[in-house]
């Protein structure tokens, strides 16, 4: 009764209304920011008195925004490659290995994901200060790799768990050496897991704020750090423009992921 949609009775109206309200609550702020980024009001008056591309112009004219976006892209790209490769190896080791402490290792690899990120940020900041690496690209990559790696290990690990290993063994039997078999048989078979690992790793780095705040220097900032420092000064509509571009980018990634999933089913 309570789990039959058509037999909810009066409850149905209440629940549907609530779901609509929560959906609006979740989507409206995003729509609102996108609308404001085209509004002419410096003070973010809504509805805007008129429409303009001014804030986007400001964004593209200021080399610091562009530079920070490129920095983000570069770091996220390096992190994605490293995370997928190291994550693939680790997932393979965990999947194939039969040794004591395997569950412990798996839990250890995932810990950076559940730890308060500020603790990790402060600890790494201290270490990199000592090593003279503070404010470098290497520092950024290592910090982001730590939180991207769990996504790779989970995503590729799940794919490996669903992969029938005897196919790989068959390839070896037919004369392939183990790595040839893995790269030409296993990797194509678990490509959806690898693709998922790449997307999540990229986003983990691209959107990351807290580690980035501590890793950044005045000359090396990612896009989130640039937004953060600007945000602490004022609520300029330029941030609305930057946010809208980020949102558009996210939607694009979601569509790519959805298409990929569809292609997998077909």
């Amino acid at each position, binding site marked *: 009764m*309570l789990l039959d949609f058509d037999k909810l009775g009066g409850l149905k109206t209440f629940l549907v209304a609530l779901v609509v309200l929560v959906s609006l609550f979740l989507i409206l702020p995003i729509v609102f920011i996108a609308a404001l980024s085209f509004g002419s009001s410096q003070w973010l008056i809504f509805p805007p008195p008129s429409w303009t591309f001014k804030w986007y112009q400001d964004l593209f004219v200021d080399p610091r925004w562009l530079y920070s976006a490129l920095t983000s892209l570069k770091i996220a790209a390096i992190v994605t490659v490293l995370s997928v490769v190291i994550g693939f190896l680790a997932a393979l080791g965990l999947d194939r290995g039969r040794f004591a402490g395997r569950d412990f290792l798996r839990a250890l690899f995932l810990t950076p994901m559940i730890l308060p990120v500020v603790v990790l940020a402060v600890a*790494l900041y201290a270490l990199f200060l000592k090593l003279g690496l503070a404010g470098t690209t290497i520092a950024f990559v290592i910090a982001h790799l730590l939180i991207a790696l769990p996504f790779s290990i989970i995503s590729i690990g799940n794919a490996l768990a669903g992969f029938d290993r005897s196919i790989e063994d068959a390839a070896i039997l037919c004369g392939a050496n183990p790595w040839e078999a893995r790269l030409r048989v296993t990797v194509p078979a678990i490509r959806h897991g690898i693709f998922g690992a790449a997307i999540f790793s990229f986003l983990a780095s691209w959107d990351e704020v807290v580690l980035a705040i501590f890793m950044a220097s005045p000359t090396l900032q990612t896009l*989130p750090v640039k937004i953060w420092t600007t945000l602490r000064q004022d609520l300029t509509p330029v941030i609305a423009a930057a946010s809208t571009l980020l949102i558009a980018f996210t939607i694009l990634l979601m569509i790519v992921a959805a298409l990929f999933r569809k292609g997998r089913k077909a």
Partner: protein
Amino acid sequence: MSDTVATGAVKTKRESTLGYLLPALLLIAFFFIVPVLMLLMRSVLEPEVGLQNYEALLGSTTYLRVFLNTFMVASIVTLVSIVIGYPVAWLLAIMPERWSRIVLAIIVLSMWTNLLARTYAWMVLLQRTGVINKTLMGLGLIDTPLALVNNLVGVTIGMTYIMLPFVILPLMGVIRTIDPAILRAAALCGAGKMQCFLRVLLPLSLPGIAAGALMVFVMSLGYFVTPALLGGTSNMMLAELVAQFVQSLVDWGMGGAAALVLLVVTLVLYAVQLRYFNPARGK
């Protein structure tokens, strides 16, 4: 025959398995375990050997207020997220797929939207001259703008906005696994709607509620960005305190001590979650 083949292949791989784990292990050891331990060491070594940092941290009312506030914010956000998220997850689990798909897409979009973009949206919406205050004044509900930002209200709204998907998605999964026949049986036996809900549906979804609540609570405890932007100076949270010790005060001893408190609370709650609410362990 296949048995011998399989064992043969396993044998060649078993020797190199640990090698595959090495890059990840080295990364975790050198850039996770070592720096976190170093930070915790500094809390008892700086400025001099001893527990003075912890005495200062736990003995002062200023810091005690930060602890209390952290727990209060995390509790309120968890409670609000569950109360709103549960009915949403419930309906999503049973409504026709063509509708639930749209709602799910909205939830995923909001989850994937940059954290700063979302927080910025709420800073603009909630400010004194923001849309919400303007609307309320336009409707004649209030005469002067409400203070919705730089206080507890702002943090609660901003964090609930972020945490809701983390409650809705797992809860929806749990409710989907409940057999509708059980509720039909309860109704057949004469239970009213209220009784069906309180004595059948709610108890059956309790593991999901507990797991979701614990996860949101732990995540909220260590949150930094949203409280820093939407909260006020009078309701600072623990993560902000850690950052402030290190960034503004350059006091690594106190920073390490505050980080340890946050770390211990998180790990204890995480252990509770693993012990009691791990889906892999069964019910």
